[in-house]
């Protein structure tokens, strides 16, 4: 894993390195101490998995720096690190596509959890803002095969229990039939069933039906 660590305080960089190593023991950490060097390092590094950027660094006003960085490297997940919580800033940064906002006073556990959440596709916000960012809480895992049904899959299964066809389910959920087909496949796999009839029986056992 390649991580950019941009902070003008060498001590803080040293402090956060062990946390990044915990994320991935073999993480390649690229350091930068201001915006220009962060841009340069990102340009030279290939396939950055994560960029941890201090909001207040020399070379550019914080929020503007992040916006420009995002525009220059849209495929790089950015987590902003800051010494203080400024609601206005956070909203602007999220608008620019930052995937997380970490307060420097957070403990290493919180930082670690936050970075894992972001890597799994979630957005991390400080507790005071967590509520507004809701909906990402179930994202603590790596992309892969799930073993429990998701909300969406339960919705699909419920309609299946009502005897609807894939097409009908797709129409009612406003998604494509192909998508429902894939949902079905996932449901069959998770419920360890082979066809719709067996799935229907499980669904009825679970007490699932619409309305």
């Amino acid at each position, binding site marked *: 894993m390649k991580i950019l660590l941009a902070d003008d305080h060498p001590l803080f960089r040293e402090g956060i390195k062990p946390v990044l190593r915990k994320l991935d023991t073999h993480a390649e950490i690229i350091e930068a101490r201001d915006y220009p060097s962060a841009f340069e390092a990102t340009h030279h590094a290939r396939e950055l998995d994560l960029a941890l950027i201090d909001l207040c660094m020399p070379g550019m006003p914080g929020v503007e720096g992040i916006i420009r960085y995002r525009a220059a490297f849209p495929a790089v997940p950015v987590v902003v690190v800051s010494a203080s919580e400024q609601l206005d800033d956070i*909203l602007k940064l999220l608008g620019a596509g930052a995937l997380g906002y970490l307060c420097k006073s957070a403990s290493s556990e919180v930082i670690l959890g936050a970075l894992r959440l972001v890597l799994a596709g979630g957005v991390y916000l400080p507790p005071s803002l967590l509520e507004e960012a809701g909906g990402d809480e179930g994202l603590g895992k790596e992309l892969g095969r799930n073993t429990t049904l998701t909300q969406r899959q339960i919705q699909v299964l419920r309609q299946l229990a009502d005897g609807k066809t894939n097409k009908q389910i797709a129409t009612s959920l406003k998604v494509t039939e192909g*998508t429902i087909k894939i949902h079905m496949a996932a449901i069959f796999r998770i419920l360890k069933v082979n066809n719709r009839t067996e799935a229907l029986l499980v669904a009825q056992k679970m007490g699932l039906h619409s309305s």
Partner: protein
Amino acid sequence: MGVILAAGYFAHRSVQETEQNLFRRGQDMTQRLAQAMSYELFVGNTLYMKRLLDYERTVQGALSIGVADGRGRWEAISGDGGALPVLGYKPESRARREGHLWLFLEEVRSPTADSDDPYLATSPEQSIGWVAVVLDDTSLHQARAEIVLASAGIMSLLLVLAGGIAWRLSSRLGGRLRGLAQTVERIADGDLGARVREVATGELGVLENGVNRMAQTLEENRRDLEQRIRDATAGLRQQTHAAEAAVLAKSKFLAAASHDLRQPLHAMTLLIAAMKERISDVEARRLAEHVESSAEAMQNLLNALLDLSRLDAGAVAVKPECFRVSGLLRRLEHRFAPMAAEKGLHLRVVPTRMAVHSDPVLLERILGNLIANAIRYTDRGGVVVGVRRGQAEAMRFEVWDSGRGVPEHFQKRIFEEYFQLDNPERDRDKGLGLGLAIVERLSGLLDCPVKMRSIPGRGSCFSICAQRCAEDGLAQETEATQPGRLAPENAMVAFIDDDEGILEAMLELFDSWQIDLAVGTEAEEVAADLRDMRREPALILCDYRLREGRTGIDAIRLLREQFGEHIPAMLITGDTAPETLKCIQESGLPVLHKPLKPAKLRAILSYTLAGEGQAPEGGGEAAAD
């Protein structure tokens, strides 16, 4: 008055004297006549007697004079005979007063023997008749009137003179005294510049001089005192300015340096955590834990201090707005419920639909501090947070606890820095004593004062006032501005991959992002589905290697032909074969490499879907390979 009395007395005296004089004259005249008449009467020489009487009457100014014989018969009369009394044989009194007439009587005796007259030699001295003199006191009355008139005239003259002198004296003296009194009064009133203007000689002058000297001394003293007070005040002001400047400088420094001050501590906390994990020795680990908690305490203290300095330095801007209270209360509940539960307390937040006009961040910090404080000082029972509707536009946030309460004599001090109840040993677990000091400053900024009521042993209630907002103007818990939302609602992404497992996983991920995904193993299938749904994709994601030798490039071309050339598209590949990469590069499509990581995908999606434009062609890592 005395003068009049004296004048009267003297007038009376002179009248008396005149009367006495008249009396004596009458007596003398009568006696002298009696002697002079002795012989004439004896011989009966009436003519002579008459002549003598006339002469005497004229000279002496008597009214009438008469000579009578021994039997009381008038021998000679001069003047008004009617005024003469009727003489009896022996008249009783020699002098008497009848009205305005004075009557004198004298016995006329026979001539003495030494007379060479032979007729007399033998006869002894005996009474032979009377002389009567009548005096009129009209002249006396006249004299009396004259005297009274004269006295009165002199008196009035004297009075006028005395009055004049008195008036003159009084007008001069009175003026002086009045001036003096006014001067003294002005001095008493504080006008120490007042002076008696014209200084007279004499005793009054001494007095006036004394007053002037006194006033001058007072004025000098006062000037001296005022100068000293001015000096002292100026000194104090200077000191105060210096102290204020020092405090402000300190606050400004701390506020400015807070970023740098916090860094080493943040780093330290992280480093200690990392170190702790590498220590296997139990004792060393225990020490590391101590260091860790010290660092944490230090960080808390520093944060509170820096907050305070930022407030004191005026570095905290207030941005009031109208917002619903419910979200704020919910956040506070989330944040403090665990802390309360840890102490076995119940935290209850009373829901409300009210909206408030305030700075949401500062208000939340105030309430957070109050709730933390309430939990800290409550041992059993719980903490209740609620909002009360006040009069007109007012509302009040209240934090109730069933804690120890604040004794009355401490109630004013609890908002001071570092003031803590029950914590003489300054146990840091009990906090730092800065919470309420921060609350007070924040509430000052928001212009909503904090109030406290407390019954020791029963609990306390802290409250802050705020301004209410109309609730209808506000959106219902705005979803649109929800931060962290990846794409606009109804955005649909098309995803084509030949591996159903990947489709399944992708579907789950996109579901969690609340983005609809149209998936399929073939472009035609997805296109048909989308046409059925009458929707067009906002983004096409496509695996490079598809079934039956088709490529993602073909799939993207197909979808773009049906739904629009403008639709952003990206290829995904796990291939590292040079030919594949060459093909992709030639297509000009951005590329993502497998394994596709959620964070990266999200980063790209947020850029692409928010921008509504072409995915970054040749931008970022897409062009890196």
